[in-house]
């Protein structure tokens, strides 16, 4: 949203606020005995803006975000259930990427940890982080420098495959290496 739009919206909000008022029943021609019983914050508020300004939400769009470019090297390490041990099966993945990082110190790789979709977003984010950090440790053991690497996590938010069975979950428990 540009500045002009924002100013226009602000002006609109102020205008609609001014156009709105709330009257206590005491001041209105309706009989009552306890018109002031509800305190500020409920329906009796005056001058605190009981109107559009409280209802309005300004939408923001960040969908244009760029994507990651991946290298041609093998780039996925899969994990067992509830585990963050980098298995020997993935030795070639670690060694190929470690060698490439050792050969070119300007090269940077982000290791993204992922989980299956059971449990909370945040706890899975932490589990994915643990997997990513395990892969980063493995890479530093075969020649990569820690400054070339960043471990991050997507938790359960970006599954490789959809599905609610062990076959799908196994494909989602992974770490992906992404060149930046």
């Amino acid at each position, binding site marked *: 949203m540009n500045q002009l739009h924002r100013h226009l919206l602000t002006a609109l909000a102020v205008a609609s606020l001014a156009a709105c008022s709330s009257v206590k029943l005491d001041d209105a021609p309706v009989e009552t005995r306890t018109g002031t019983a509800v305190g500020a914050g409920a*329906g009796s508020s005056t001058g605190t803006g*009981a109107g559009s300004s409280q209802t309005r939400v300004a*939408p923001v769009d960040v969908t244009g975000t760029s994507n990651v470019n991946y290298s041609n090297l093998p780039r996925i390490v899969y994990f067992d259930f509830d585990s963050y041990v980098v298995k020997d099966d993935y030795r070639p993945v670690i060694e190929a990427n470690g060698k490439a990082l050792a050969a070119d110190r300007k090269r940077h790789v982000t290791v993204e940890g992922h989980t299956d979709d059971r*449990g909370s*977003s945040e706890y899975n984010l932490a589990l994915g982080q643990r997997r990513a*950090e395990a892969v980063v440790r493995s890479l530093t053991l075969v020649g990569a420098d820690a400054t070339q690497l960043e471990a991050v*996590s*997507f938790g359960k938010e970006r599954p490789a495959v959809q599905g609610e069975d062990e076959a799908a979950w196994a494909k989602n428990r992974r770490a992906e290496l992404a060149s930046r």
Partner: protein
Amino acid sequence: MALLSFPLSQIRFARRFALAACALALALPAAAQFRVEISGVGATQLPIAVVRFRDEDKSNQSPSAIIRADLERSGAFKIVDANGTPLDETSQPRMPEWRQRAADALVAGSVTRLADGRYDIRFKLWDVVKGSELGGQSSAVDAADLRLAAHRIADYIYEKLTGEKGVFSTRIAYVTRAGPRYTLRVADADGENGQVALNSGQPIISPAWSPNGKELAYVSFERQKAVVFVHNVASGERRAIADFRGSNSAPAWAPDGERLAVTLSREGGSQLYSIGKNGGDPRRLASSPAIDTEAEYSTDGRHLYFTSDRGGSPQIYRMPAGGGGAERVTFSGNYNISPTVSPDGRTLAYITRAGNAFRLVVLDLATPGAQPQMISDTNDDEHPSFAPNGRLLIYATRAQGRTVLMTTTLDGKIKARLPSQTADLREPVWGPYGR
């Protein structure tokens, strides 16, 4: 139209009012609303009749239907059929007639269009048993705020009759996922009037309302990693407050609104830190070789509840808000996550794993040795959040292949579902009283 295509089989007991609401909804703009499901009996409910407001059909809303739905969803009221004699706030209702209908309370009102285009909405509340007036109000509002005015009337009635503040005029925030599109939305507590706060092609998780209800903190992956943002809902202005090396997540506002607890991996592992609402240098709150995350402050600001697997399996712990020794809070089951504590500090709600099911449970913190109570029978419950009066919880669960939002009373007996035909609804969080 969402209301009509909603399968009736999902409603365990279709209530008469719901049918009336459906009929009225034909005249309303298409929108989703929480639908009430009653499971079990027993809760003490006050029977109340809410008569159709005079001339409400000349506005674009149906305040009486909004009020009835609010009151029923709270679990504290039973809606009594109010068809028949037209009434408004100036009427002298015949109390014997309403006693005969078994109503203990009665509401009537009117909606009048003013010369300047606004609406004057008035109501009166009667104690049918005593045959006396309990109060009433009048307010002039923009057409766009008629719903809000109706919610505030429901709040007034709720407070008059239960002695506690109502939460009907509060807001909720949640995330929708439809294909590759993630949207952070803000809606009225009944699910209506949903508005977009943020559209993104990347996941958004963990929204958290600031104590003043003006800002949302959340985790966005738009920078290809987890970054914590704070976002002013009315203006759309936003700022990254935690974008450190590694993952930045799980924001939780301190009650003073000045600082947030966050989970950072900048020093390795997922650890708890405190950071200012505008960012700056984070201060480490705890140091463990395990995962520490999902922090939440107690309302008095003295404690932090959080999830940790330091004992070998994820459990909920509590520690002083400034850091220090943590004590374990959950002992039954080997997987307890996502703690949230009631505003009075007496009840903890969280998610437990039972077999392959993830279920919402509540634990009475005030009674030593109390056992957790499972209050849902669904299998994929997530992300519970208390209403500001502590009487309802909102959470996400899976139903018919989609993730939906639910509200529930703390005894699990009165639930309401916010369905969607087009998107998964996730990560709900209930806002504070202010907006």
